[in-house]
């Protein structure tokens, strides 16, 4: 792995940027990889298009933005339509299945994982605000790109008042990710 690219697309308020920051912090500070995290958003506080990106490498990263993601996490229909063409031919597509429908044929090599992240956060964790952490859990179970120990440490440091909620969200997300993986085999 010389360069591994992750793109996350959704709308403002879903925690798309925070999600990438937590993933980046884990990969950089805990897993000791080279990491660059960037984002792009509009002037609105909520509801506008939001995109975040992470590049992880074993050596210093030159170009900081994602060119052809290895993984695309789609959390809104608008983001799916805008960025689906950029995904690597043999890339991984993770969607929130309640928010995104696959509307066209995916390239043959693409592996699709459907995770009901918002539903899990709402019904099982008890707050939709945990959607992004559920999705981090699913991503981690599917790709193995981040250390779970590192993620837990980040969650404890970042959200000291909401540790239990977020650890539960991470756990449920990982379970959903593992189930989606098992269904493929």
């Amino acid at each position, binding site marked *: 792995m010389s360069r591994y690219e992750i793109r996350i697309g959704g709308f403002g308020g879903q925690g798309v940027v925070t999600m990438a*920051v937590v993933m*980046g*912090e884990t990969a*950089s*500070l805990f897993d000791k990889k*080279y*990491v*660059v*995290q*960037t*984002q*792009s*958003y*509009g*002037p609105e506080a909520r509801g506008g298009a939001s995109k975040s990106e992470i590049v992880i490498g074993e050596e210093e990263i*030159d*170009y*900081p*933005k994602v*060119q052809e993601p290895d993984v695309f996490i789609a959390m809104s229909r608008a983001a799916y339509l805008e960025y689906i063409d950029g995904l690597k031919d043999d890339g991984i597509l993770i969607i929130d299945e309640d928010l995104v429908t696959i509307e066209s044929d995916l390239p043959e090599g693409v592996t699709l994982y459907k995770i009901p992240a918002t539903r899990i956060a709402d019904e099982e964790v008890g707050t939709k605000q945990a959607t992004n952490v559920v999705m981090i859990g699913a991503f981690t179970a599917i790709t193995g790109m981040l250390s779970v120990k590192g993620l837990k440490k980040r969650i404890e440091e970042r959200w000291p008042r909401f540790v239990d909620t977020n650890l539960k969200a991470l756990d449920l997300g990982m379970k959903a990710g593992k189930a989606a993986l098992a269904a493929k085999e």
Partner: protein
Amino acid sequence: MPERVMFTMGDIACAEGALSAGCKYFGGYPITPATEIAEWMSIRMPEVGGAYVQYEDEIASITSVIGASWTGAKSMTATSGPGVSLMLEAIGLAVMTETPLVLVNIMRGGPSTGQPTKGQQGDVMQPKWGSHGDYQIIALTPASVQEMFDQTVQAFNLSEKYRTPVFVLADETVGHMRERLVIPAKKDLKLEYRKLASGPPEDYLPFKPGDDLVPPMALLGSKYQFYATGLTHDERGYPSDKEHVQIELITRLNNKIIHNADKIIDVEEFMLDDAKIGVIAYGTPSRSAKKAIKDARDEGIKVGMLRFKTVWPFPEEQVARLASQVDHIIVAEQNLGQMYYMVKAEAAPTPVHLMAKPAGMPQLPNEILDKVREINSL
């Protein structure tokens, strides 16, 4: 303070760099994409015994920074292009009164309100030519989160050493990207402090320079009496309409930078040893160029990069040397061509090709690679 490691954004690295340099005053007005600097300073300044003041606008912000600097506090502001436009008159005042300060511009799309959340490099000429009159400016162009820290420290050092305003010019991508940042232990940082007035107050001449052309500074509230004005002034600080005073003053103000240009200018040479094509870039496009150059080298194309870490004073000698070595120069910048004209003037007769992109997304590595291939086939 021991070494600290963070995974953080360029704006925050800039603020931390200022704090490590000993900045004790931030006066500003928030603006995307520089707001995080103000936000971070508002939290951190009280912790280090400094002052953070948010003003009604950018004009008040920069003039407060000038005043704070005269009390002896290392002082700064941070803004974006629209804010710099408002600050230009006061930048001239800081040059004329020889006030050390640091001004950070996280560049966004312009002109006018432009694209607040998107980056650009449209303001690289602005610090040099924006204020009126003949003056020199120092402007640094970081390309990573670590450089946002390192070059902000450097900006304070240069402002203190030469008693002059110094710009940090970063594009939005550098300001908002997150990377690993290592903040060195305090004992490992080399910090500069302005020369202060000494000797009997009755003999003190506030604008009489030393051999380095920089006058020792008296601080507000000290035992020295002085007068600082934007009017042309003699060594006593008194306004003068005499021809020789004007010539001597502005020549010295310019020469204190020009004569030290070799100590101020900072460039990185990347794979230039045997290069026949030289790419010139700064900020985020330089990172696209690095990837493109590695890929072009894999194809056997002899290409390298001269990266400007400072754009002002302009790296004339470095460009001239590159021009004498290579057959072609490509300038890749995130605007419609600004440094391009400076490079072109210095590189003649070596052909200089502009690769402009006046938009939020910097040149993609493949776009630069295509240009390198095209030039290589000429």
